[in-house]
C-alpha cells in the first residue's frame, strides 16, 4: 500500500485516526485537553451512530413499516411494541414517569425471565454436570486425551477448586461465648484454599485483560507505523 494508491477518504480517515490515537496516548502525561477531546468525540460519534442505527435498523423497518404498510397480522404485532415504546417516552417527564413503568416492567420481566432461563439451562445445569463428569475418569480422560490418573488429579483439583471457592463465599458462623463468631475449622481451611483458586482466576482474568489491552496497543502502534511508512517511504 502506498500513498498514491490510497483514496482520499481513506487518507483522511487514517489522519483523523492518527490524531485521535495520539490524543488518547497523551494521557501518558496525565489528563489533558486532547485526551478529553478524543473521548468526547468517541462518545458523540458512538451516540449518533447508535441513534441512526436504531432508527434505520429497528424503528423504521421493524416497527413503523409493519404498522403502516404491513398486513393486518403485522400491524397487530407492531401495535403493542409501538404503544409500549410510546409509553417509555413518558420516562422523560418526572410527572408522567409512572406511566412508563408498565413497559419497563414488561422489559425487565421478560429480560429477567430470559436470563434466568438461559442461565439455568445453559450454564448451571451444564456446569454442574461438567463438574460431576470430571470424575467419569474414562470418558473425561478420553475427551481430554490424558490418562485416567491425570484425569483423576484434574478432577480432584477441579473439585477442590469449586468447593473451596464456594466455601470462601460462605459467611455463616456459629456464635461463641465471649468470642467473635468464627466459621468452623474445615470451612475456614477450605475457604483459605479457595482464596488461591480465586486469586489464580483473577490473575488469569487480569492477564487476559492485559493481553487484550496490549494487543490493542500493538494494533494502534502498528497503525501508526504503517502510516509513517506510507508517508515516509
Amino acid at each position: 500500500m502506498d500513498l498514491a494508491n490510497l483514496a482520499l477518504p481513506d487518507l483522511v480517515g487514517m489522519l483523523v485516526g492518527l490524531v485521535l490515537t495520539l490524543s488518547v496516548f497523551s494521557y501518558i502525561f496525565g489528563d489533558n485537553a486532547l485526551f478529553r477531546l478524543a473521548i468526547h468525540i468517541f462518545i458523540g460519534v458512538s451516540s449518533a451512530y447508535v441513534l441512526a442505527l436504531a432508527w434505520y435498523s429497528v424503528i423504521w423497518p421493524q416497527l413503523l413499516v409493519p404498522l403502516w404498510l404491513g398486513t393486518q397480522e403485522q400491524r397487530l404485532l407492531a401495535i403493542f411494541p409501538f404503544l409500549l415504546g410510546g409509553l417509555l417516552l413518558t420516562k422523560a417527564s418526572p410527572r408522567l414517569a409512572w406511566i412508563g413503568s408498565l413497559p419497563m416492567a414488561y422489559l425487565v420481566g421478560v429480560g429477567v425471565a430470559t436470563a434466568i432461563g438461559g442461565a439455568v439451562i445453559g450454564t448451571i445445569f451444564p456446569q454442574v454436570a461438567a463438574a460431576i463428569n470430571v470424575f467419569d475418569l474414562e470418558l473425561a480422560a478420553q475427551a481430554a486425551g490424558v490418562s485416567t490418573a491425570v484425569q483423576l488429579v484434574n478432577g480432584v483439583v477441579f473439585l477442590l477448586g469449586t468447593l473451596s471457592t464456594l466455601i470462601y463465599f460462605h459467611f455463616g458462623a456459629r456464635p461463641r461465648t465471649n468470642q467473635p463468631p468464627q466459621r468452623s475449622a474445615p470451612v475456614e481451611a477450605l475457604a483459605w484454599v479457595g482464596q488461591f483458586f480465586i486469586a489464580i482466576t483473577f490473575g488469569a482474568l487480569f492477564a487476559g485483560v492485559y493481553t487484550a489491552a496490549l494487543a490493542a496497543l500493538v494494533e494502534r502502534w502498528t497503525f501508526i507505523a504503517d502510516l509513517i511508512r506510507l508517508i515516509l517511504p
Partner: protein
Amino acid sequence: MADVRCPMCGKSNPAERETCQFCQARLKPLRVSPSGSTPAQPTPMGGQSNRDDDLPDWLRDMRPVGDELPPEQEEDLPNWLKGSDATDPGVEQSDLPDWLKSFRSPAAVEERPVEDYPAKELPAASDDAFALPDWLSGLDKQATPSEQDADWRAEPAADIPDWLVSSGPAQPPAASAPQPDNDLPDWFSPAAAQDEDLPDWSQPAAAAPAQPPASEEGLPDWLAELTGAPGGPAVDDTPEAWAPPAPSSPELEQGGDFPDWLQELNQPAAPGAAEAGLAGAEDLPDWIRDEETRRETPPERTAGPAAPEPASAIEAGAPDWMAAFLRGGFGEQEEQELAERRQPGPAPAETPAEEDLFGGDLDWLQEMGASAPELPESLEAPPAGPRLTSGVAPFAINDSDADEIGPLAGEQLPDWLAEARPADAAPPAGGPVDSGLTPAELPSWLEAMRPVPAGSGKPSDDEPSGEPETAGPLAGLRGTLPVEPHILQVSKPIAHPLKLQVAADQQARAELLAELVQREGEAKPLPARRTLASQHILRIGIAILLILTILVPLFLEEPQSPMPLAGLQTSAANELIQALPGGANVLVAVDFEPGLSGELTATAAAVLDHLMIKGAYLAFVSTTPVGSLQAERLVRITNEQGEPPHQYRSPDQYLNLGFIPGGPAGLLAFVESPRQAAPLTLDNKYAWMSGALENVQSLADFALVMVITENPETARNWIEQVGPGLERPGQGKTPLLMVVSAQAEPLVRPYYEGVSNQVQGVVSGLSGGASYEDLMGRSGLARTFWTPFSLSLIAAALLILLGGLFNAGLALWARRKGDTEGEG
C-alpha cells in the same frame, strides 16, 4: 323617616339608630324613664297625693281645684292644652320650670316665709356651669318648656305635666296622679327650684309678681294684647316658652341686636298666624274670654285643695296657669315677699331691675309676643336630641357632673344664638356661683367626653386615676387605656455581675484549651508528595518501554517471535471450519466494541480467512450497535489480507443482518424466529428471500455459528440462549465457535472443556489468531502483531516482576529497619 342629626358630630343618621354611625355618640337621650315612675293612681276626689305634700304650699295653691273641663269643652282646646289636661306621669309638677313655678298664686307666696329665699336664689349674672350670660341662659332655659311642650303635643292626653295640671283647670285628683320626688331629676325637683339653686333667669320670673303683672299696665304689651289686642301671640307658645328673660344690655333691651327671628316676632303677625284665635276678641277662645271675665271676679283662694272654679271659667276652657296669670298675678303679700328675696342677694351688675324685667324692659317681650306670628322652628319644635344650648338637658345625671357642661355647651351654641349675644355682655360678677345654679344634666356618655380643663387641679376621687390624655378625641380624659401597653415598655434589665471565681489552675487549663483550639484553626503546610514525580516518571518510562518494544520489531522487522502453538480449542475450531462444506451458511455474530477491535480483528480475520477459503456464505449479525460496522470492517480487512485477496461482497458472499436489539431476549427471539427478528439487511433489504439464506428457517439450519466478542457476558448469552436452539433433530448439533478476546477466555473456556461441550471451538486472543494463522499457514494481522505483542508482553512481564521485587525489597527493608529501631 326623618334623619336624626348627631349632637356630637352633626351628621345625619337614620332615625332608627340609637347611636351615631360616625362617632358612636348616642342619638336618643337617656332620659329618666317616665315609665319607671309609678303610674297614675287614682286618688280620692279632693284629696292630695303624697307628692303634693312635698310641694310648696304656693304651688299647691296654684292648682285650682275643680277646674275640670267638661269633655265637650275639652275638645275645643288646642292640642297642647288638651294634653295638659291629662296627667303625665313622666312630666310631673317637678318638671315645671322655675320661672313657671314662680307663677304661683299669691296665696301660696304668702305661705312661704321670706327666709326661705336665700340670697343665692336671687338672679345671678350668669351660670358658670354653662358660661352663658343670664339672658342667654334664661333664653335657653325658656326653650325647655317649649321642648317639653312639643313633646306634650305628641304625647297622649294622659301625659299632661303637673305644672299644666296645677295651672290649668282643676283636674280631678285621679287624673293627676302625683309622682314621688325621688323619680324626678334634680333639676326638676321642687326642692331644687325652691332651694338655693334657683337660676337667675328664674329669679325675675319668680319675682315678676312683685310688679303688678295682674294689671294691664304691669303686663308686657304682648300679654296685654292677649287680653284684647288682635293678633296676639299664640297662647300655646308664649306663656311657656317666653318667660321674661333678663336682658343685660341696652341693645338687647331695645331689640336692636336681636336676631332676625326675634325681630320678626315684633312684626305684626299675619292674621292667619293667630291660630290660637287671638286675632280679635271675638276670635278668642272661650277660655281666654272666660279668663277675662274671671279677672274681674277672682276666684276664692283657699289654703287647702283648690276649690272648684266657677262654671264660667271651666266653660271658657282657659288653662289654669293662664287664668291665674291673667287674673292679676300675685297678691301684695307675695310681691312683697319676692321683693325681699331679691334684695339680700348679690345682684350682679347686669341684673336688670325688677322694673326692667317686667316693666319697661319687657316691652320687647310685649312687642315680640304681640307681633310674633310664629316662632322659629328651633323653638317651636326643638329637636328630639339633646340640646346643649338649652341649658336643660333631657338626661338625668348627677348634679356634680352638670357643673362642668358649661364650656362645652357654650362652644356649641348655634350661630343665631352667638349672634344674638350682646357685645357688651359682661362676665358674671363675683366669679362662679355654683350653689345658685341649677346643675345641668348631661348624659353619661357626654359627661365621659367632657374634657378636663387644664389646671383644674387634682382630680376628684370619683375620677379615674392616671395622666389625662393630651391629644386626640380623648383629650382631657383620665384613666384611658394607654396607647403603648405596659408590656412593651421594656426596661433595662438589672445587670448582674458574672465574674466567675476561677482558680489559677483552672485558668491555666482554660488557656491551654484555648491554645489548642486556636492551633486547630491554623493552616499547616502539606507534606511534599515525593511519590508523585516518581510515579509520573515511572508511568512515562513504562509507556516508553512498551512503545519501543512495539515499534522496534515493526520497523526493524527483527527479531521475529516464533508463532504460538495452537491449543486444543483452536485446533478444534480449525477442524470445525475445515469440516464445513463449501458454500455452507455460516452465521457470524460480531459483538465486540471498537476498543478491542485491534485484538479481535486480527484474531477473527484468521478464522474468517479460513471461512472465506472454504467459500462459506457468511451471515453477519450483531447484538451490539456497532457490531454491524465492525463486521463490514472485518470483511474488508480479511479481503485485503488474503493472499490472494478475497472478493467477498454483499449479498453474494455474505449478508449483514444488522443489529438485533433486546440483548438476551432478542437473541432468544432470533433463535426462535430469525426471519422475524432480523428480517432486513444492513441496507434495508429482505435477507431471507433470496440467496443462500432462502432455505434457512432457524439457526440450526446454519452449518456453523461463530461468535466474535470480547465480552464474556455476551459470549454467555449466546451460549445460553442460542446453544439450545442449535440442536437439529436427527442431525446433531450445529457447532458453536467462539472467537473471543483474551480477557474473556477464562470465562468461556469452561463451556468448551465441559462434558456437555456447549462450545466446540475457541479461538482466544491474539495468540489464538496467530496460532490459527500458523495452522492455516497464512500470514495475516495476527502474525504482524505477534512479534511486537510478544516482545511487549515479555517487557510487561519483566516490569511486573521487577516492580514486584522492588516493592518486596522496600517492604523487607522497612521491616528490618523497624526491627532495628525496635531493638534499639
